[in-house]
């Protein structure tokens, strides 16, 4: 929690410091009031006092009140600004941190959990700070200050007050020790619910198609029920707090007068002046004691917020302090152009540890096309994602333009590479936003957008849209067809004008004709561009300069279509299942 506060800007710190000073000033003036009241009591009970004397004291009291008012309003203002500023900084820091996360970190934290950390968790902290600055600082100081003021006045009454304070603290301790851990659980359970509905939302089509609504709902309701039961226990325990505080406050005031009566009675009746002082002390004691209890009550209120905020703070810190494993290099230039080389690359995912790629070696030169084929789960996506440095190879080396991929800056690397992921990703916005998403050295005019769209064989449908390249795209690209979505994500990669293009199964949703025209266009217009193509269809890759056949992470064949047909059984099997006899022999 404290460590998070360090992220505030200078501005917030200054305001927070000021706020504490203001609180001190405010307490000083607040606590002066009962003193004046004690003066008044003496005046009232002493025969011969004048109204003028009272009015005089009254003006002094008014002065204190106004001073306290100025201090407290200024403090309230500052506290709210600090809280808003802190949450602003935290949101920015967390988002910027996550934006630079690698795939590994994304998977470790999981997307839904990161979302909660960036949103709810920060709101929790903000609420605590907004209240806390005013209350956490003020209450203990107030309580201690008030105690100091009364402790000398009467030992009996001090003891009684101490008793109540101790009882209240015990209730607080119960809450902190027993309930806090469960509040932590509430956060986890909320995460869980978030995850389940998110799964449902992203897979909504599948859910409908399999009539899995009931299954999803049951899963959700189960999690929702557990959440409810945990919260029930927590809130019922918290319900103890308020009544016990009110009871203490009232009972204490009562006892002070009650016991006070005995104390006054002990002073000999002859000594009228001492009896009056003794009585006025009791009245003042009552007021101060109320201040003490009230301060504790405010602290209780904060305590109710503390656990949730603490959990949130921990979760935010986890993100902010996470080390991004992948380190960016410094290289921007290279002598070669458009070459990709894998040197004895093996890889296993950090999360599973099982080797997914084993000893892969190959090289492509500028303008060549290399294709990867293999059964699902054979490691094709994994392989090309290493070429885009989503992960670093566990052993071996990936070279782009003759240099280790780890030496490049991200910018230099992704300026060389255009990568179309297996699952096309579109963002809310319009077509132009999506094609020009991100930064690259390539020019970014509307002409370039149209060019990329044309090359991706998407212009025929984009032109039909009333707004053309300004046509809106919904989140996830749900308002275009599967093939259209794929072509737009291809256009995005093309618009970067890279040296190396990677297509991960990116023609799968295209019909044969579009697939063929697209590839023809690419080889005609982008003859200099190296292409890495993952495909399931032999037809898509048979003309590639080099084909790598993957089987359970191993390269079981490397060569041209004809060579592989001759000497790679795995490839021949795939080919036979897709091509006719004459095509095979052609």
């Amino acid at each position: 929690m404290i460590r998070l506060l360090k992220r505030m800007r200078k501005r917030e710190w200054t305001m927070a410091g000021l706020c504490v000073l203001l609180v001190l000033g405010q307490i000083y003036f607040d606590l002066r009031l009962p003193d004046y009241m004690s003066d008044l009591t003496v005046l009232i009970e002493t025969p011969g006092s004048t109204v003028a004397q009272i009015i005089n004291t009254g003006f002094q009291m008014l002065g204190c009140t106004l001073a306290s008012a100025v201090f407290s309003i200024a403090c309230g203002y500052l506290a709210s600004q600090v809280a808003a500023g802190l949450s602003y900084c935290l949101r920015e820091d967390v988002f910027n941190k996550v934006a630079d996360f690698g795939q590994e970190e994304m998977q470790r934290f999981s997307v839904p959990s990161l979302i909660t950390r960036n949103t709810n968790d920060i709101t929790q902290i903000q609420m605590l700070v907004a209240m806390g600055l005013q209350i956490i600082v003020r209450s203990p100081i107030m309580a201690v200050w008030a105690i100091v003021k009364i402790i000398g006045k009467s030992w009996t009454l001090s003891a009684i007050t101490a008793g109540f304070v101790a009882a209240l603290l015990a209730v607080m301790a119960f809450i902190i020790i027993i309930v806090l851990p469960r509040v932590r659980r509430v956060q986890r359970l909320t995460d869980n619910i978030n995850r389940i509905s998110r799964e449902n939302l992203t897979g909504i089509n599948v859910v409908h198609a399999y009539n899995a609504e009931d299954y999803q709902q049951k899963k959700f309701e189960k999690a929702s029920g557990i959440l409810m039961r945990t919260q029930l226990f927590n809130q019922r325990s918290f319900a103890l707090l308020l009544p016990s505080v009110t009871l203490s406050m009232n009972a204490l005031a009562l006892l002070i007068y009650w016991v006070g009566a005995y104390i006054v009675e002990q002073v000999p009746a002859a000594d009228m002046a001492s009896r009056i002082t003794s009585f006025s002390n009791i009245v003042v004691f009552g007021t101060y004691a109320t201040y003490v209890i009230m301060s504790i009550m405010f602290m209780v209120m904060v305590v109710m917020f503390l656990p949730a905020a603490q959990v949130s703070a921990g979760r935010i810190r986890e993100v902010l302090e996470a080390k991004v494993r992948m380190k960016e290099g410094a290289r921007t230039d290279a002598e070669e152009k458009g070459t990709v080389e894998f040197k004895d690359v093996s890889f296993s995912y950090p999360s599973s540890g099982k080797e997914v790629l084993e000893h892969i070696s190959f090289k492509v030169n500028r303008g060549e096309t290399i294709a990867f084929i293999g059964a699902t789960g054979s490691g094709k996506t994994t392989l090309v994602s290493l070429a885009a440095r989503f992960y670093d190879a566990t052993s071996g080396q990936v070279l782009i333009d003759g240099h280790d991929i780890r030496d490049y800056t991200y910018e230099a690397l992704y300026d060389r590479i255009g990568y179309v992921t297996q699952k096309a990703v579109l963002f809310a916005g319009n077509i132009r936003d999506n094609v020009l998403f991100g930064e690259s050295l390539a020019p970014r005019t509307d002409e370039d957008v149209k060019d990329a769209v044309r090359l991706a064989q998407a212009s025929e449908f984009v032109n039909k849209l009333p707004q053309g390249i300004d046509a809106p795209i919904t989140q996830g690209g749900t308002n275009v067809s599967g093939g259209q979505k794929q072509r737009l994500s291809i256009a995005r990669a093309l618009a970067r004008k890279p040296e190396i293009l990677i297509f991960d199964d990116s023609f799968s949703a295209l019909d044969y004709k579009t697939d063929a025209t697209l590839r023809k266009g690419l080889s005609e217009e982008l003859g200099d561009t190296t292409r890495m193509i993952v495909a399931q269809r032999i037809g898509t890759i048979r003309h590639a300069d080099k084909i790598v056949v993957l089987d359970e992470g191993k390269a079981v064949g490397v060569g041209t279509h004809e060579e592989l047909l001759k000497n790679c059984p795995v490839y021949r099997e795939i080919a036979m299942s897709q091509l006719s006899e004459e095509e095979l022999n052609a």
Partner: protein
Amino acid sequence: MSENRMAGRRMAVPEKSKRGLLGVLKELLEYSKNLKVPTIIALSLAVAGAVLTIIGPSQLSRIADLITEGLAAGIDLKAIAGVGALLLCMYLASALFTYVEHFIMATITLSLSKKMRDDLSRKINNVPMECFGRTSHGDILSRVTNDVSTLQQALSNSLPSIISSAAQFVGCLVMMFVTEWRMALAAVLVTLLGFAAMALIMSKSQRYFVARQRNLGSLNGYVEEMYSGHDGVRISCANDQIKKVFAGLNKEVYEAERKSQFLSGIMQPLMNVVGNLGYVVVCVLGAVLAINGQISFGVITAFIMYVRLFTSPLSTIAQGMTQMQTAAAAGDRVFDFLQEKELSDESHKTERLETVRGEVEFDHVRFSYPSNPDKIIIKDFSAHVLPGQKVAIVGPTGAGKTTMVNLLMRFFEINSGDIRIDGVSASRIL
């Protein structure tokens, strides 16, 4: 780009909570029928607890009087003990009532929020797909968790505390005037000032709270989208770009937050000031009256407590109201989604296909997506597939193959024509 994107995310949310606080409460009662009775019981207990505390000061003032009267002669300790014991019992009862009230409210609102969550989750599976085009996933998720929880907390904490504070307020008012009208008048005048300030702030702040909630909603949506599309961000080197867009959204939230939080931030201190002022007025006026022998000292003691009991409900009400404001905005969002038009009302759909033979018929089907009604995707399409027949839908990309399947699955409603399964219109099948 960023301008455009933010404009695209703006949802059509009105400036103020559109149902209003009372509207949301009414809707809640309709939504959950068994909410009414326990709420009434709990709220009555809250009132009873508050009233019992109010009687306190008058008894305490009797003790103070007993002491001052006995200052010269000798104090009647027995009488004091009697009053004290009675008062202690009342305080205990009040504490008990309050606890039971909290217990009940926690119980019913938590089960209400479970019902809401479950219904929201069910709703996700029942709304037409176009709904997800309008509302981002993050935004919907935020309704399931944040908004429901905001609403629950407001209902279980703020609502009873507003009611009991109101009771305390009124009770105090009565007791003060019964005890001493001049001092009561002075105390009330001072507090009225507080009232006026509070009302002013409330009316000013609501707009900012709605704005804050809305900005936060679109920020959350953006976070959701970018985190989910992290791969795409990375390969496009879009890190800096999305940081910039986010910074813009964040700035908007910050501005809205500064305004809404400032107003709620000074509420508490303002009430504190009013309380202090009341204290001073009561002490001074009381002292003047006491010196002239018009009131006893006990009245001052009583009033010192009354002023606190009288002003503290105001700040509680003020805080409660700001929370109810946020809750109303949250409630709006929850009910908006719950009342989102469903694929079509399933309740009157009685046909259930027990054993599906598998006969499918498209009869002059015409369809366009609701977001783009001018572009007819399926034009007057008819086909008849017999059970056991295998039919392939082929066509170039974007021809409408997926659309056809979507229609058969009834993800969208067709414009005209009919789709029949085993001779039964798909729109009537459960």
